[in-house]
């Protein structure tokens, strides 16, 4: 694979973007930061499948496409199957010698939001991982169905308000915990699984490169703060991501071959989750005295998970 140097940002910035502007993602959207970074990580040709979601409805609205590579969208759930089919066709045609350029290097990538990944497309993704297609699945996790106006998904954390799990007089928002998608995908035995965040651009770029280089199905959950539904100013996307990673709401780590866990980022000063929650309108109601217990519950969940990650890393199993 022809990888771009990510030694430092100056080197990285010589990559030639293949994701064009005048897409219709919201100003300040983290999705496009993540997509640009993925595409800038490699010089190889890319075949990209995208599940229905913000990214899809904003980047291929007839008569315009923002993609300088091969790209396909079918439905909300099936980008992993579509890319699996494309990857199978590449194998068949390469063997038969019917490709227009039999030696052109290519990488297969599927994007899905958390709605597509955690919920409606879970089966399609799981099947593609079991079959072992050589592709990288990247979840753009903004913890809600942002494309349709902010409904709950199984990635929505406890305590967040969404239009279908609302905070109200008798509700503190979503009651259920977020699904642990990273562990689930690691349990598929995938050779490379990681959770990455765009504020930590270098670990993200290296993780993307590792996933693209690794043969077989790789999964990356990326934190994608959503100014529209998380309710913060578009300019603050990166600072909110800083709060997410430094409060350990989104720990940055990788799991190799389903078991070898490495923590990729250890905040020097671990922030309280309260600092992260307070920066977003979706958690505003939690700061009423009657919902203090929810914040405590979130903090405990974060502490426990971090403890588990550290123990697993130390155990080297």
């Amino acid at each position, binding site marked *: 694979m022809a990888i771009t140097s990510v030694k430092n940002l100056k080197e990285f910035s010589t990559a030639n973007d293949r994701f064009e502007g005048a897409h219709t993602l919201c100003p300040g959207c983290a999705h496009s930061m993540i997509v640009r970074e993925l595409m800038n990580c490699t010089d190889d*040709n890319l*075949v990209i*499948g995208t599940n229905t979601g913000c990214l*899809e*409805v904003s980047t*291929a*609205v*007839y*008569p315009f*496409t923002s*993609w*300088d*590579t*091969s*790209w*396909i*969208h*079918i*439905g909300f*759930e*099936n980008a992993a*199957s*579509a*890319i*699996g*089919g*494309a990857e*199978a*066709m*590449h*194998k*068949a*045609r390469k*063997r*038969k010698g*019917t*490709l*227009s*350029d039999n030696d*052109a290097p*290519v990488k297969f990538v599927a994007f899905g939001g958390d709605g597509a990944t955690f919920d409606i497309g879970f*089966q*399609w993704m*799981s*099947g*593609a991982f*079991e*079959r072992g297609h050589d592709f990288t699945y990247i979840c753009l996790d903004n913890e809600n169905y942002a494309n349709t106006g902010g409904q709950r998904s199984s990635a929505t954390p406890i305590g967040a308000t969404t239009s279908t799990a609302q905070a109200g007089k008798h509700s503190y928002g979503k009651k259920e915990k977020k699904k642990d998608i990273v562990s689930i995908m690691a349990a598929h035995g995938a050779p490379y699984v990681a959770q990455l965040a765009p504020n930590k651009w270098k670990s993200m770029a290296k993780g993307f490169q590792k996933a693209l280089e690794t043969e077989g199905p790789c999964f990356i959950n990326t934190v994608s703060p959503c100014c529209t539904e998380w309710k913060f100013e578009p300019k603050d996307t990166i600072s909110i991501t800083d709060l997410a990673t430094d409060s350990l709401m989104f720990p940055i780590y990788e799991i190799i071959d389903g078991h070898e866990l490495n923590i990729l980022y250890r905040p020097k000063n671990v922030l309280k989750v309260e600092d992260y929650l307070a920066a977003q309108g979706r958690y505003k109601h939690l700061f009423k005295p009657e919902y203090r217990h929810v914040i405590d519950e979130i903090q405990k969940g974060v502490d426990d998970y971090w403890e588990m990650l550290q123990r697993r890393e130390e155990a080297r199993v």
Partner: protein
Amino acid sequence: MPKEIFELQDREVWDGNYAASQAMRQANVDVMAAYPITPSTPIVENYGSYVANGYIDGEFVMVESEHAAMSACVGASASGGRVATATSSQGFALMAEVLYQASGMRLPIVLNVVNRALASPLNVRGDHSDMYLGRDSGWIQLGAFNAQEAYDLALCAFKIGEDHSVRLPVMVHQDGFITSHTAQNVYPLSDEEAYKFVGDFKPVDDMLDFSRPVTYGAQTEEDWHFEHKAKQHKALMDSRPVIDKVFEEFEKISGRKYKRVESYMMEDAEVALVGLGTTVETARVAAKQLRDEEGIKAGVVAIRAFRPFPFDLVRDALENVKSVGVTDRSSPGGAMGAFFNEVSAALYTTPKRPLVTNYIYGLGGRDFSIEDAKNIFREQKANADAGYVTTDIQQFSGLRGPKLGFFQTKRS
């Protein structure tokens, strides 16, 4: 090239499933992505055995659902190679979302549909509920009435769908169990003849041609969607002469003649039965016997290409008869049978407007006998003599319990 050569006899004893899977093998399919479901499972199993024994050099992707099967077919087809799969019934229903996507993207996937009823109640036997579910999906739909035809039409399907003036997906239907599991004599082409007929796949908008990156599956809202769907419909309508041409070419190499509408004893027919699938062969036997035994001038009109619907050919075939029984092997769900409606619409545009009656029959694999077909002809004869439909306009044929029917002729 596959590692092994498959030995074929001039005459084989194959069921419809085996025949279809042999056509897939001979067409040198690049990607088959599939999920098994009764009664089409053996197509996938047979193909799997060809893979295991070195007769296939394409990819065989066994996915986790029919929805994923068609999704993988779409991704594979957009990647510039030959793609096929098979399904039935519930699997077909699960695929439905992606069927529309495949045709909308103009991808020439071949889908072998072994027709089976849709639950509930659960039923594994043949009727046409799944085929009807696909009728607005923008696919070409060809109907085989026996194993030989399942083989022949599967080969034709690649050549039709992949034609650059068509670029549409094609379903080849055969009736569950009656065709799919009944071993019959089949005369296959040699591998060389079959592949030469189908030809090399010629990619269009190939996702693996990196000199020309393409975006598949763009969103089109009110400013654009209508134009795209109209263009797609036009392509489907314009596939008619291509289907005719491919059938003619196939006749030249096989001696077997196919037409989009096939008439049997219709030259002087007074009454006719219009049907789909294996029913056609039963009706032909009944028509012949009735002519001999009761002097009823009966004929049969069979629809080979259900989509694009041969409106003009149906009209030409039926406009001179007096009374027509149109058979629907699918639960009509609160309306007249869909096939009845389409045939009636065609006949409405003729000067003489034959009488038309709708028969709902054979649901869930209920046998449709020669005697059942004769009864339909006899009722048509009574209608022809009376000058109006003497029975209910929609009747259930072969059903236990009190006679079930709806609507009567309005007479002044």
